[in-house]
Protein backbone atom coordinates (compact mmCIF):
# COMPACT_ATOMS: atom_id res chain seq x y z
CA UNK A 1 0.00 0.00 0.00
CA UNK A 2 1.11 3.52 -0.75
CA UNK A 3 2.03 5.56 2.34
CA UNK A 4 -0.60 7.93 3.57
CA UNK A 5 1.18 11.20 2.85
CA UNK A 6 -0.31 13.97 0.79
CA UNK A 7 1.45 14.22 -2.59
CA UNK A 8 1.77 17.93 -1.97
CA UNK A 9 3.76 17.31 1.20
CA UNK A 10 6.00 14.95 -0.72
CA UNK A 11 6.45 17.66 -3.34
CA UNK A 12 7.52 20.32 -0.85
CA UNK A 13 9.59 17.88 1.19
CA UNK A 14 11.52 16.64 -1.83
CA UNK A 15 12.50 20.21 -2.64
CA UNK A 16 13.59 21.25 0.84
CA UNK A 17 13.94 18.62 3.55
CA UNK A 18 15.17 15.76 1.43
CA UNK A 19 16.76 17.70 -1.36
CA UNK A 20 18.47 15.37 -3.84
CA UNK A 21 21.83 17.11 -3.67
CA UNK A 22 21.91 18.76 -0.30
CA UNK A 23 20.27 16.05 1.82
CA UNK A 24 20.91 12.88 -0.17
CA UNK A 25 24.10 13.89 -2.00
CA UNK A 26 22.92 12.39 -5.26
CA UNK A 27 23.88 13.65 -8.70
CA UNK A 28 27.06 15.24 -7.34
CA UNK A 29 29.17 14.60 -10.42
CA UNK A 30 27.34 16.82 -12.86
CA UNK A 31 26.39 19.14 -9.98
CA UNK A 32 30.06 19.97 -9.44
CA UNK A 33 31.19 19.77 -13.05
CA UNK A 34 28.56 21.94 -14.75
CA UNK A 35 28.09 24.60 -12.07
CA UNK A 36 30.68 27.18 -13.04
CA UNK A 37 28.25 29.13 -15.23
CA UNK A 38 24.75 30.10 -14.17
CA UNK A 39 23.19 29.72 -17.61
CA UNK A 40 24.41 26.21 -18.33
CA UNK A 41 23.72 25.13 -14.77
CA UNK A 42 20.14 26.25 -15.11
CA UNK A 43 19.82 24.36 -18.43
CA UNK A 44 21.12 21.20 -16.81
CA UNK A 45 18.77 21.65 -13.86
CA UNK A 46 15.75 21.90 -16.14
CA UNK A 47 16.89 18.88 -18.14
CA UNK A 48 17.31 16.85 -14.95
CA UNK A 49 13.77 17.79 -13.88
CA UNK A 50 12.35 16.75 -17.24
CA UNK A 51 14.22 13.45 -17.33
CA UNK A 52 13.33 12.66 -13.71
CA UNK A 53 9.64 13.01 -14.41
CA UNK A 54 9.54 11.13 -17.70
CA UNK A 55 11.84 8.25 -16.81
CA UNK A 56 10.53 7.71 -13.33
CA UNK A 57 6.90 7.69 -14.35
CA UNK A 58 7.93 5.06 -16.91
CA UNK A 59 9.90 3.18 -14.27
CA UNK A 60 6.88 3.32 -11.95
CA UNK A 61 4.76 1.70 -14.63
CA UNK A 62 7.44 -0.92 -15.42
CA UNK A 63 7.82 -1.74 -11.74
CA UNK A 64 4.12 -2.15 -11.07
CA UNK A 65 3.13 -3.85 -14.31
CA UNK A 66 6.24 -5.90 -15.22
CA UNK A 67 8.72 -6.34 -12.38
CA UNK A 68 6.28 -6.98 -9.55
CA UNK A 69 3.91 -9.37 -11.33
CA UNK A 70 6.82 -11.41 -12.73
CA UNK A 71 8.71 -11.36 -9.40
CA UNK A 72 11.82 -9.79 -10.96
CA UNK A 73 12.68 -7.51 -8.03
CA UNK A 74 16.26 -8.77 -7.96
CA UNK A 75 16.73 -7.50 -11.53
CA UNK A 76 15.21 -4.10 -10.92
CA UNK A 77 18.51 -2.17 -11.01
CA UNK A 78 19.43 -3.44 -14.45
CA UNK A 79 15.93 -2.89 -15.80
CA UNK A 80 15.65 0.62 -14.38
CA UNK A 81 18.99 1.64 -15.83
CA UNK A 82 18.13 0.23 -19.25
CA UNK A 83 14.81 2.09 -19.23
CA UNK A 84 16.48 5.36 -18.17
CA UNK A 85 19.13 5.04 -20.89
CA UNK A 86 16.60 4.18 -23.58
CA UNK A 87 14.21 6.98 -22.69
CA UNK A 88 16.96 9.58 -22.53
CA UNK A 89 18.23 8.53 -25.93
CA UNK A 90 14.80 8.70 -27.53
CA UNK A 91 14.07 12.00 -25.82
CA UNK A 92 17.24 13.47 -27.26
CA UNK A 93 16.48 12.27 -30.78
CA UNK A 94 12.96 13.62 -30.50
CA UNK A 95 14.03 17.04 -29.25
CA UNK A 96 16.80 17.27 -31.82
CA UNK A 97 14.30 16.70 -34.61
CA UNK A 98 11.24 18.62 -33.54
CA UNK A 99 12.41 21.16 -30.98
CA UNK A 100 15.84 22.36 -32.12
CA UNK A 101 15.82 25.41 -29.87
CA UNK A 102 14.92 23.43 -26.80
CA UNK A 103 17.48 20.85 -27.83
CA UNK A 104 20.11 23.56 -28.10
CA UNK A 105 19.32 24.57 -24.53
CA UNK A 106 18.67 21.24 -22.83
CA UNK A 107 19.35 18.45 -25.27
CA UNK A 108 23.12 18.44 -24.99
CA UNK A 109 22.84 17.69 -21.30
CA UNK A 110 20.69 14.63 -21.80
CA UNK A 111 23.52 12.11 -22.35
CA UNK A 112 25.15 13.44 -19.16
CA UNK A 113 21.98 12.79 -17.25
CA UNK A 114 21.70 9.13 -18.26
CA UNK A 115 24.39 8.35 -15.75
CA UNK A 116 23.28 10.89 -13.16
CA UNK A 117 22.67 8.96 -9.97
CA UNK A 118 19.91 11.35 -8.90
CA UNK A 119 17.68 9.69 -11.50
CA UNK A 120 18.27 6.12 -10.37
CA UNK A 121 18.22 7.33 -6.77
CA UNK A 122 14.76 8.79 -7.18
CA UNK A 123 13.55 5.60 -8.87
CA UNK A 124 14.74 3.49 -5.97
CA UNK A 125 13.30 5.89 -3.37
CA UNK A 126 9.91 5.73 -4.99
CA UNK A 127 10.02 1.94 -5.13
CA UNK A 128 11.22 1.51 -1.54
CA UNK A 129 8.67 4.00 -0.27
CA UNK A 130 5.98 2.37 -2.36
CA UNK A 131 4.61 5.63 -3.77
CA UNK A 132 1.34 5.79 -5.70
CA UNK A 133 1.28 7.24 -9.19
CA UNK A 134 0.40 10.76 -8.09
CA UNK A 135 2.95 10.64 -5.27
CA UNK A 136 5.59 9.46 -7.76
CA UNK A 137 4.77 12.29 -10.13
CA UNK A 138 5.01 15.01 -7.51
CA UNK A 139 8.02 13.41 -5.82
CA UNK A 140 9.96 13.53 -9.09
CA UNK A 141 8.80 17.03 -9.93
CA UNK A 142 9.90 18.17 -6.46
CA UNK A 143 13.21 16.32 -6.61
CA UNK A 144 13.93 17.87 -10.01
CA UNK A 145 13.11 21.36 -8.82
CA UNK A 146 15.20 20.80 -5.70
CA UNK A 147 18.19 19.64 -7.76
CA UNK A 148 17.76 22.56 -10.13
CA UNK A 149 17.56 25.00 -7.23
CA UNK A 150 20.70 23.56 -5.63
CA UNK A 151 22.77 23.76 -8.82
CA UNK A 152 21.72 27.31 -9.70
CA UNK A 153 22.49 28.44 -6.17
CA UNK A 154 25.96 26.94 -6.39
CA UNK A 155 26.46 28.34 -9.90
CA UNK A 156 25.40 31.82 -8.85
CA UNK A 157 27.81 31.73 -5.91
CA UNK A 158 30.63 30.37 -8.07
CA UNK A 159 30.05 33.04 -10.68
CA UNK A 160 30.29 35.78 -8.08
CA UNK A 161 33.32 34.10 -6.62
CA UNK A 162 35.08 34.31 -9.98
CA UNK A 163 36.16 37.77 -8.87
CA UNK A 164 37.34 36.65 -5.45
CA UNK A 165 40.96 35.87 -4.71
CA UNK A 166 41.03 32.26 -3.53
CA UNK A 167 44.03 30.34 -2.29
CA UNK A 168 45.12 28.38 -5.39
CA UNK A 169 44.62 24.98 -3.77
CA UNK A 170 41.04 25.79 -2.95
CA UNK A 171 39.89 27.15 -6.32
CA UNK A 172 37.57 24.96 -8.42
CA UNK A 173 36.12 21.79 -6.92
CA UNK A 174 37.60 22.47 -3.49
CA UNK A 175 35.61 25.58 -2.79
CA UNK A 176 32.54 24.09 -4.51
CA UNK A 177 32.59 21.24 -1.97
CA UNK A 178 32.84 23.68 0.92
CA UNK A 179 29.95 25.78 -0.39
CA UNK A 180 27.86 22.66 -0.91
CA UNK A 181 28.58 21.59 2.64
CA UNK A 182 27.52 24.95 4.04
CA UNK A 183 24.35 24.95 1.91
CA UNK A 184 23.59 21.43 3.10
CA UNK A 185 23.96 22.61 6.70
CA UNK A 186 21.46 25.37 5.97
CA UNK A 187 19.07 22.82 4.47
CA UNK A 188 19.28 20.70 7.60
CA UNK A 189 17.33 23.57 9.15
CA UNK A 190 14.34 22.57 7.04
CA UNK A 191 14.24 19.01 8.31
CA UNK A 192 11.61 18.56 10.96
CA UNK A 193 9.18 20.75 9.06
CA UNK A 194 8.15 17.83 6.84
CA UNK A 195 9.30 14.33 7.54
CA UNK A 196 9.22 12.45 4.29
CA UNK A 197 9.26 8.73 3.86
Amino acid at each position, binding site marked *: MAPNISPLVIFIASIFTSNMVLANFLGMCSYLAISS*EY*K*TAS*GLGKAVTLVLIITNVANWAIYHY*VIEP*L*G*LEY*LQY*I*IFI*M*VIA*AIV*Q*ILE*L*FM*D*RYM*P*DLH*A*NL*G*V*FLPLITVNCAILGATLFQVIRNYSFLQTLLFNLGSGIGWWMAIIMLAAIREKMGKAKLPPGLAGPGIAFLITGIMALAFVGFSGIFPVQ
Partner: protein
Amino acid sequence: MNFAEVFTTVLSITGISAALTIIISLAEMKLNDYGICTLDINDGSKTLEVQGGQYLLNSLAANKIFIPSACGGKATCGLCKLQVMEGAGPLLPTEEPYLTEEERENHYRLACQVKIKSDLKLHIPEELFNIKEYLTNVDVLEDLTHDIKLVRLKLPEGEVLNFKPGQFMQFYTKPYDKIKESVFRAYSISSPPSEEGYVEFCIRQVPDGICTTYVHTALNEGDQVQLSGPYGDFFYRGNTKTMVMVGGGSGLAPLRSLALDNLAKGVDANMSLYFGAQKPRDLYYTEEFRDLEEKHDNFKLIQSLSRVEEGDDWDGLTGRITVHLDEDLKKLEDPTDVEAYLCGGPGFLASVRKVLIDNGVPASQIYFDEF
Protein backbone atom coordinates in the same frame (compact mmCIF):
# COMPACT_ATOMS: atom_id res chain seq x y z
CA MET B 1 17.27 -21.54 -8.10
CA ASN B 2 15.28 -23.93 -10.22
CA PHE B 3 15.18 -24.18 -13.97
CA ALA B 4 11.87 -22.31 -14.37
CA GLU B 5 13.23 -19.32 -12.46
CA VAL B 6 16.38 -19.13 -14.59
CA PHE B 7 14.22 -19.46 -17.66
CA THR B 8 11.88 -16.59 -16.67
CA THR B 9 14.82 -14.38 -15.73
CA VAL B 10 16.60 -14.89 -19.03
CA LEU B 11 13.39 -14.55 -20.96
CA SER B 12 12.22 -11.37 -19.23
CA ILE B 13 15.60 -9.64 -19.42
CA THR B 14 15.87 -10.59 -23.09
CA GLY B 15 12.31 -9.46 -23.68
CA ILE B 16 12.77 -6.10 -22.01
CA SER B 17 16.12 -5.44 -23.72
CA ALA B 18 14.72 -6.45 -27.07
CA ALA B 19 11.67 -4.25 -26.61
CA LEU B 20 13.84 -1.26 -25.68
CA THR B 21 16.24 -1.93 -28.55
CA ILE B 22 13.41 -2.14 -31.02
CA ILE B 23 11.88 1.09 -29.72
CA ILE B 24 15.23 2.89 -29.95
CA SER B 25 15.95 1.55 -33.42
CA LEU B 26 12.52 2.57 -34.65
CA ALA B 27 12.92 6.00 -33.07
CA GLU B 28 16.36 6.36 -34.59
CA MET B 29 15.15 5.33 -38.03
CA LYS B 30 12.25 7.72 -37.87
CA LEU B 31 13.75 10.62 -35.94
CA ASN B 32 17.37 10.56 -37.03
CA ASP B 33 16.79 10.16 -40.75
CA TYR B 34 17.92 13.35 -42.37
CA GLY B 35 18.61 11.74 -45.76
CA ILE B 36 21.76 12.36 -47.77
CA CYS B 37 23.25 15.79 -47.09
CA THR B 38 25.79 17.69 -49.15
CA LEU B 39 28.81 19.25 -47.51
CA ASP B 40 30.13 22.16 -49.52
CA ILE B 41 33.71 22.81 -48.44
CA ASN B 42 35.51 26.10 -49.14
CA ASP B 43 32.97 27.55 -51.57
CA GLY B 44 32.64 24.53 -53.79
CA SER B 45 36.31 23.53 -53.98
CA LYS B 46 35.24 20.15 -52.60
CA THR B 47 31.81 18.64 -52.08
CA LEU B 48 30.91 15.50 -50.14
CA GLU B 49 27.70 13.53 -50.02
CA VAL B 50 27.20 12.12 -46.54
CA GLN B 51 24.49 10.37 -44.58
CA GLY B 52 22.71 12.91 -42.36
CA GLY B 53 22.29 12.43 -38.63
CA GLN B 54 26.00 11.99 -37.92
CA TYR B 55 28.34 14.42 -36.24
CA LEU B 56 30.38 16.60 -38.56
CA LEU B 57 33.76 15.63 -37.06
CA ASN B 58 33.16 11.91 -37.61
CA SER B 59 31.68 12.43 -41.03
CA LEU B 60 34.70 14.44 -42.18
CA ALA B 61 37.11 11.90 -40.69
CA ALA B 62 35.30 9.13 -42.59
CA ASN B 63 36.05 11.14 -45.70
CA LYS B 64 39.74 11.51 -44.81
CA ILE B 65 39.53 15.13 -43.71
CA PHE B 66 41.14 15.17 -40.30
CA ILE B 67 40.19 18.06 -38.07
CA PRO B 68 42.53 18.18 -35.04
CA SER B 69 40.76 16.86 -31.96
CA ALA B 70 42.27 15.78 -28.67
CA CYS B 71 39.18 14.68 -26.76
CA GLY B 72 37.64 12.57 -29.49
CA GLY B 73 34.34 14.43 -29.78
CA LYS B 74 33.34 15.11 -26.19
CA ALA B 75 33.49 18.92 -26.40
CA THR B 76 36.22 19.11 -23.78
CA CYS B 77 39.25 20.20 -25.81
CA GLY B 78 37.80 22.79 -28.18
CA LEU B 79 40.33 22.02 -30.93
CA CYS B 80 37.95 20.96 -33.71
CA LYS B 81 36.85 24.52 -34.54
CA LEU B 82 35.82 25.24 -38.07
CA GLN B 83 33.54 27.66 -39.87
CA VAL B 84 30.06 26.42 -40.71
CA MET B 85 28.61 29.18 -42.85
CA GLU B 86 25.15 27.70 -43.35
CA GLY B 87 22.95 24.96 -41.97
CA ALA B 88 24.42 24.28 -38.52
CA GLY B 89 21.46 25.27 -36.34
CA PRO B 90 21.72 27.12 -33.04
CA LEU B 91 24.96 27.31 -31.06
CA LEU B 92 24.97 24.68 -28.31
CA PRO B 93 25.86 25.38 -24.69
CA THR B 94 28.58 22.73 -24.92
CA GLU B 95 30.33 24.84 -27.55
CA GLU B 96 30.00 28.22 -25.86
CA PRO B 97 32.97 27.97 -23.49
CA TYR B 98 35.37 27.37 -26.40
CA LEU B 99 34.30 30.15 -28.76
CA THR B 100 35.15 33.82 -28.41
CA GLU B 101 32.72 36.58 -29.35
CA GLU B 102 34.66 37.13 -32.56
CA GLU B 103 34.64 33.45 -33.47
CA ARG B 104 30.89 33.24 -32.92
CA GLU B 105 30.31 36.16 -35.26
CA ASN B 106 32.47 34.43 -37.86
CA HIS B 107 30.35 31.26 -37.69
CA TYR B 108 32.92 29.13 -35.91
CA ARG B 109 31.54 25.90 -34.42
CA LEU B 110 32.95 22.77 -32.83
CA ALA B 111 32.80 20.06 -35.47
CA CYS B 112 32.21 17.38 -32.83
CA GLN B 113 28.98 19.04 -31.68
CA VAL B 114 27.42 19.95 -35.01
CA LYS B 115 25.04 17.29 -36.23
CA ILE B 116 24.47 17.12 -39.95
CA LYS B 117 20.75 17.69 -40.44
CA SER B 118 20.76 19.56 -43.73
CA ASP B 119 23.19 20.65 -46.44
CA LEU B 120 26.14 22.49 -44.89
CA LYS B 121 28.54 25.08 -46.20
CA LEU B 122 31.93 24.79 -44.48
CA HIS B 123 35.21 26.63 -44.46
CA ILE B 124 38.14 24.44 -43.54
CA PRO B 125 41.67 25.91 -43.50
CA GLU B 126 43.64 24.71 -46.54
CA GLU B 127 46.49 23.56 -44.28
CA LEU B 128 44.33 20.79 -42.89
CA PHE B 129 44.04 19.18 -46.30
CA ASN B 130 47.80 19.28 -46.53
CA ILE B 131 48.68 17.29 -43.43
CA LYS B 132 50.03 13.94 -44.57
CA GLU B 133 52.51 11.30 -43.58
CA TYR B 134 55.76 10.92 -45.46
CA LEU B 135 58.29 8.10 -45.44
CA THR B 136 61.61 9.76 -46.20
CA ASN B 137 65.25 8.71 -46.38
CA VAL B 138 68.20 10.48 -44.80
CA ASP B 139 70.12 12.06 -47.68
CA VAL B 140 72.64 14.19 -45.80
CA LEU B 141 73.57 14.23 -42.14
CA GLU B 142 76.29 16.70 -41.22
CA ASP B 143 77.48 18.92 -38.39
CA LEU B 144 76.53 22.57 -38.70
CA THR B 145 78.07 23.42 -35.32
CA HIS B 146 79.46 21.34 -32.45
CA ASP B 147 75.89 20.56 -31.29
CA ILE B 148 73.60 21.23 -34.27
CA LYS B 149 73.20 18.75 -37.11
CA LEU B 150 71.76 19.36 -40.53
CA VAL B 151 69.34 16.57 -41.43
CA ARG B 152 68.39 16.54 -45.08
CA LEU B 153 65.64 14.10 -45.94
CA LYS B 154 64.61 12.89 -49.37
CA LEU B 155 60.88 12.64 -49.97
CA PRO B 156 59.55 9.62 -51.85
CA GLU B 157 59.75 9.96 -55.64
CA GLY B 158 57.02 12.26 -56.94
CA GLU B 159 55.86 13.47 -53.51
CA VAL B 160 55.63 17.19 -52.92
CA LEU B 161 55.59 18.73 -49.47
CA ASN B 162 53.31 21.74 -49.68
CA PHE B 163 54.26 23.97 -46.75
CA LYS B 164 54.62 27.60 -45.81
CA PRO B 165 58.13 28.63 -44.68
CA GLY B 166 58.18 28.73 -40.87
CA GLN B 167 55.96 25.69 -40.39
CA PHE B 168 57.11 22.52 -38.65
CA MET B 169 56.92 18.77 -39.11
CA GLN B 170 56.59 15.92 -36.63
CA PHE B 171 59.66 13.72 -36.71
CA TYR B 172 59.19 10.08 -35.59
CA THR B 173 62.08 8.19 -34.05
CA LYS B 174 62.59 4.45 -34.08
CA PRO B 175 63.47 2.51 -30.93
CA TYR B 176 67.22 2.72 -30.19
CA ASP B 177 69.55 1.83 -27.30
CA LYS B 178 67.47 1.81 -24.15
CA ILE B 179 64.54 3.65 -25.72
CA LYS B 180 62.01 0.97 -26.56
CA GLU B 181 59.29 3.12 -28.03
CA SER B 182 58.88 5.32 -31.04
CA VAL B 183 58.41 8.98 -30.10
CA PHE B 184 57.79 12.07 -32.17
CA ARG B 185 58.99 15.62 -31.80
CA ALA B 186 58.29 18.77 -33.76
CA TYR B 187 61.05 20.46 -35.75
CA SER B 188 60.86 23.54 -37.92
CA ILE B 189 61.68 23.12 -41.57
CA SER B 190 64.87 25.00 -42.41
CA SER B 191 64.78 24.62 -46.18
CA PRO B 192 62.60 26.72 -48.48
CA PRO B 193 59.71 25.12 -50.42
CA SER B 194 61.70 25.58 -53.64
CA GLU B 195 63.92 22.64 -52.60
CA GLU B 196 61.52 20.22 -54.22
CA GLY B 197 61.79 16.62 -53.18
CA TYR B 198 63.85 17.40 -50.08
CA VAL B 199 63.23 18.77 -46.63
CA GLU B 200 65.86 19.97 -44.15
CA PHE B 201 65.99 20.40 -40.39
CA CYS B 202 68.58 21.83 -37.99
CA ILE B 203 68.50 19.67 -34.90
CA ARG B 204 70.39 20.67 -31.81
CA GLN B 205 71.55 18.06 -29.32
CA VAL B 206 69.54 18.52 -26.14
CA PRO B 207 71.14 16.70 -23.16
CA ASP B 208 69.07 13.54 -22.58
CA GLY B 209 66.63 14.51 -25.34
CA ILE B 210 65.16 11.30 -26.75
CA CYS B 211 64.69 12.52 -30.30
CA THR B 212 67.74 14.78 -30.52
CA THR B 213 69.99 12.02 -29.13
CA TYR B 214 68.48 9.67 -31.70
CA VAL B 215 69.33 12.09 -34.49
CA HIS B 216 72.82 12.77 -33.14
CA THR B 217 73.87 9.22 -32.28
CA ALA B 218 71.64 6.57 -33.84
CA LEU B 219 70.61 8.00 -37.20
CA ASN B 220 72.68 7.27 -40.31
CA GLU B 221 72.58 8.39 -43.90
CA GLY B 222 70.17 6.20 -45.87
CA ASP B 223 67.96 5.44 -42.86
CA GLN B 224 64.23 5.76 -43.15
CA VAL B 225 62.48 8.56 -41.25
CA GLN B 226 58.76 9.03 -40.87
CA LEU B 227 57.41 12.58 -40.91
CA SER B 228 53.98 14.09 -40.66
CA GLY B 229 52.88 17.62 -41.32
CA PRO B 230 53.16 20.46 -42.09
CA TYR B 231 51.74 22.10 -38.98
CA GLY B 232 51.77 25.53 -37.38
CA ASP B 233 50.71 29.10 -37.85
CA PHE B 234 54.20 30.61 -37.83
CA PHE B 235 54.59 31.86 -41.40
CA TYR B 236 55.15 35.11 -43.30
CA ARG B 237 52.22 37.55 -43.26
CA GLY B 238 53.78 40.33 -45.36
CA ASN B 239 51.70 43.35 -44.32
CA THR B 240 54.57 45.71 -43.54
CA LYS B 241 57.66 47.17 -45.19
CA THR B 242 60.04 46.00 -42.49
CA MET B 243 60.56 42.43 -41.43
CA VAL B 244 62.62 41.61 -38.37
CA MET B 245 63.65 38.02 -37.68
CA VAL B 246 65.24 37.11 -34.38
CA GLY B 247 66.55 33.67 -33.53
CA GLY B 248 68.77 31.93 -31.04
CA GLY B 249 70.43 28.50 -31.23
CA SER B 250 68.57 26.14 -33.55
CA GLY B 251 65.89 28.83 -33.81
CA LEU B 252 67.63 29.89 -36.99
CA ALA B 253 65.95 27.00 -38.84
CA PRO B 254 62.47 28.40 -39.62
CA LEU B 255 63.97 31.87 -40.15
CA ARG B 256 66.32 30.49 -42.80
CA SER B 257 63.34 29.02 -44.61
CA LEU B 258 61.45 32.32 -44.33
CA ALA B 259 64.39 34.43 -45.50
CA LEU B 260 65.38 32.18 -48.42
CA ASP B 261 61.80 31.98 -49.61
CA ASN B 262 61.15 35.71 -49.36
CA LEU B 263 64.40 36.58 -51.15
CA ALA B 264 63.73 34.05 -53.91
CA LYS B 265 60.28 35.51 -54.40
CA GLY B 266 61.62 39.07 -54.43
CA VAL B 267 59.43 40.23 -51.54
CA ASP B 268 59.55 44.01 -51.33
CA ALA B 269 60.45 44.52 -47.66
CA ASN B 270 63.55 45.30 -45.65
CA MET B 271 64.58 42.11 -43.91
CA SER B 272 66.97 41.91 -40.99
CA LEU B 273 67.95 38.60 -39.47
CA TYR B 274 69.26 38.80 -35.91
CA PHE B 275 71.05 35.76 -34.60
CA GLY B 276 72.28 35.55 -31.04
CA ALA B 277 74.74 32.92 -29.85
CA GLN B 278 77.42 32.48 -27.20
CA LYS B 279 80.66 31.66 -29.00
CA PRO B 280 82.01 31.64 -32.56
CA ARG B 281 81.61 27.85 -32.66
CA ASP B 282 77.80 28.31 -32.33
CA LEU B 283 77.42 30.18 -35.61
CA TYR B 284 76.19 28.44 -38.74
CA TYR B 285 74.99 29.31 -42.24
CA THR B 286 77.01 32.54 -41.89
CA GLU B 287 78.57 32.31 -45.35
CA GLU B 288 75.28 31.58 -47.02
CA PHE B 289 73.65 34.61 -45.42
CA ARG B 290 76.66 36.89 -46.18
CA ASP B 291 76.36 35.87 -49.85
CA LEU B 292 72.67 36.76 -49.79
CA GLU B 293 73.50 40.11 -48.19
CA GLU B 294 75.75 40.91 -51.13
CA LYS B 295 73.15 39.89 -53.69
CA HIS B 296 70.20 41.61 -52.07
CA ASP B 297 70.18 45.19 -50.79
CA ASN B 298 67.12 44.58 -48.65
CA PHE B 299 68.60 41.78 -46.54
CA LYS B 300 71.11 41.93 -43.72
CA LEU B 301 72.41 39.52 -41.12
CA ILE B 302 73.27 40.72 -37.64
CA GLN B 303 75.16 38.26 -35.46
CA SER B 304 76.16 38.90 -31.90
CA LEU B 305 78.06 36.71 -29.49
CA SER B 306 77.53 37.00 -25.77
CA ARG B 307 80.48 35.00 -24.39
CA VAL B 308 83.48 35.87 -26.50
CA GLU B 309 86.73 35.11 -24.70
CA GLU B 310 90.20 36.30 -25.47
CA GLY B 311 91.76 34.28 -28.23
CA ASP B 312 88.41 33.64 -29.94
CA ASP B 313 88.47 34.38 -33.65
CA TRP B 314 85.77 37.04 -33.64
CA ASP B 315 85.71 40.67 -34.69
CA GLY B 316 81.92 41.15 -34.95
CA LEU B 317 79.33 42.41 -32.49
CA THR B 318 79.37 41.23 -28.92
CA GLY B 319 76.83 41.20 -26.12
CA ARG B 320 73.23 40.13 -26.10
CA ILE B 321 71.42 40.28 -29.45
CA THR B 322 68.56 42.22 -27.83
CA VAL B 323 70.90 45.19 -27.22
CA HIS B 324 71.67 45.49 -30.94
CA LEU B 325 68.04 44.93 -31.86
CA ASP B 326 67.08 47.74 -29.48
CA GLU B 327 69.59 50.13 -31.07
CA ASP B 328 68.38 49.36 -34.58
CA LEU B 329 64.70 49.66 -33.68
CA LYS B 330 65.32 53.10 -32.20
CA LYS B 331 66.64 54.23 -35.60
CA LEU B 332 63.43 53.24 -37.38
CA GLU B 333 61.06 55.99 -38.44
CA ASP B 334 57.88 54.00 -38.04
CA PRO B 335 58.11 51.07 -35.61
CA THR B 336 54.44 50.21 -36.23
CA ASP B 337 55.43 49.20 -39.77
CA VAL B 338 57.38 46.21 -38.48
CA GLU B 339 56.50 42.55 -38.47
CA ALA B 340 58.67 40.46 -36.19
CA TYR B 341 59.28 36.72 -36.43
CA LEU B 342 60.88 35.14 -33.39
CA CYS B 343 62.16 31.66 -32.77
CA GLY B 344 63.92 30.36 -29.69
CA GLY B 345 63.43 29.26 -26.11
CA PRO B 346 60.80 30.85 -23.84
CA GLY B 347 63.21 33.13 -21.91
CA PHE B 348 64.87 34.35 -25.10
CA LEU B 349 61.50 35.05 -26.72
CA ALA B 350 60.21 36.96 -23.70
CA SER B 351 63.21 39.30 -23.66
CA VAL B 352 63.08 39.89 -27.43
CA ARG B 353 59.34 40.54 -27.26
CA LYS B 354 59.83 43.10 -24.51
CA VAL B 355 62.40 45.01 -26.58
CA LEU B 356 60.04 45.03 -29.59
CA ILE B 357 57.04 46.23 -27.59
CA ASP B 358 59.06 48.87 -25.71
CA ASN B 359 60.05 50.26 -29.10
CA GLY B 360 56.46 50.50 -30.31
CA VAL B 361 56.09 47.36 -32.43
CA PRO B 362 52.42 46.31 -32.11
CA ALA B 363 52.03 43.05 -30.18
CA SER B 364 49.70 41.72 -32.88
CA GLN B 365 52.57 41.92 -35.40
CA ILE B 366 54.94 39.77 -33.37
CA TYR B 367 54.87 36.10 -34.36
CA PHE B 368 56.45 33.32 -32.32
CA ASP B 369 57.79 29.87 -32.78
CA GLU B 370 58.57 28.74 -29.29
CA PHE B 371 60.40 25.58 -28.28
